[in-house]
């Protein structure tokens, strides 16, 4: 266990009923360790008025009950002062789960059509895209979006693609890429990521996510196109 006290953070408003603490600028395992540690700190020792915590890659968002917070005697600024004091306290970067999941992927085909577009846009052979995508052992940085969706990083920079202009319907088991992120859609959902493959790997067990923050994921290609 190492104890850490990161000095860098920035707080910004996420509407009038939530704010986000940003602990870094990039996708980085150490930043994410810190996010998870701070999440646990606020979860174990709740602050009055905070009703939800949303950890992400490099941010932790605190949602608050506007009715409690907007009382003249309390107020958002007072709440943020409380939070800042908490951030002064060092946190333990505890034992984070590190299970390795090997996930079989069928790249391309009718359930991975966007691989063609990625190939054309990047001028990279489809087989090379598969190799580059399956090469790293990814880290599960966060859960979010919809139940069971695990955000993985970090994707090879060569494969970095913008999100689609308009979110499209996406089927369960779809493997998507966007920016330096990759992930698997656990259920039908609209989504803006580029879909390059498909897996039958179960992502939910009794409605609970199987992949946990800190876990490792290795994609195993099942075919060549």
């Amino acid at each position, binding site marked *: 266990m190492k104890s850490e006290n990161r000095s860098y953070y920035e707080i910004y*408003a996420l*509407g009038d009923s939530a704010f986000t603490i940003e602990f870094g600028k990039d*996708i980085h395992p150490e930043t994410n360790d810190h996010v998870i540690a701070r999440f646990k700190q606020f979860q174990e020792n709740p602050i009055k008025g905070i009703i939800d*915590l949303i950890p*992400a890659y490099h941010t932790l968002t605190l949602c608050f009950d506007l009715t409690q917070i907007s009382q003249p005697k309390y107020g958002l600024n007072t709440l943020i002062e409380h939070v800042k004091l908490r951030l002064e306290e060092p946190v333990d970067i505890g034992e984070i789960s590190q299970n390795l999941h090997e996930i079989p992927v069928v790249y391309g085909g009718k359930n991975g059509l966007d691989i063609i577009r990625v190939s054309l846009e990047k001028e990279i052979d489809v087989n090379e895209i598969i190799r580059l995508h399956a090469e790293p052992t990814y880290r599960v940085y966060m859960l*979010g979006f919809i139940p069971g969706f695990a955000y993985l990083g970090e994707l090879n920079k060569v494969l970095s693609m913008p999100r689609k*202009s*308009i979110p499209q319907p996406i089927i369960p088991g779809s493997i998507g890429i966007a920016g330096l992120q990759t992930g698997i859609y656990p259920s039908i959902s609209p989504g803006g990521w580029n879909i390059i493959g498909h897996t039958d790997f179960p992502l939910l067990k009794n409605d609970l996510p199987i992949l946990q923050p800190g876990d490792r994921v290795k994609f195993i290609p099942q075919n060549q196109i």
Partner: protein
Amino acid sequence: MSLIVHKIGILDTIQHFGIRGQQSKGIRPGGVMDLFSASIANALVGNKLTEDVVEIHFPACEIIFKKSCMISLVGADFTAKLNEKYLPLNRPILIPDESKLRFIAPKSGRIVYLAVQGGLAGQGQLEKSQEIDFKKKQKLTTDFIHIFPWSADTTWRTDAPEIHVIQGREWERLKEESQRQFCCKPVKISNHSNRMGYRLQHKPFYTRTNEEIISSAVNFGTIQLLPNGHTIVLMADHQTTGGYPRIAHVISADLPKFAQKSPGDEVIFHLTDQETAEKEWQAQQKHIKQIQNISQLKLNESFEKNSHKL
């Protein structure tokens, strides 16, 4: 209390007031789209403000009440009819056994809330009920429908187009001309709108950078900028996180008004600050509380006065 869905409305649901504390697992809060109308519907029948309600869109469901009960309708005007009598909005109404509630035509607003005194506990999903064939039942009666002689002031949910927003993290990405366009030019609600989000129709916005952002939390009311320059406002069933730039957020006090906008309706965004957003919210909560207190008082008085008749 026995409520039977005679005909389903595709989008109609029984709604709670949001699940909290589960977003770290990707479980969205969900809940009613228009918190103001739903709370007042509950207040009118003497429920706690956060009792489950039926959220009704048009084309709407038809509901049969097996037993006499007290109901209220608040929000959109869909020309509600109980048996053969038109029902007003914003009032407590006593209805007799074997009543049928239906909605004839949408006149204003997008969502109406039905609250039932004592709540909807045990009703579960709003699915078509198999258990009766209503046509075989006796003639619908308009006798014994009692509309109480007071109504709640819901003018907060005005039809005015102004919607107040707070700047988002990526506001500065918009070029100045697009910032100006966003702040004062009307935009239209698109047909592609549902409980997850309302898409907006406007001239595309231009940005200084298209750099991809790292996904993080989003909120009810977050206005995301899509790469094609269009925008989407995240609503009650929004995902917990997202990666499109967040240019602004609708303030909590204006979300009910915004939720009631139908496809084709115009809205005009106005920038405001946290302090104003909090004041507006406090004022709105106070208004709901007042309606709750007055309703309780009037209901009590009315039952005392009429108790000798029962």
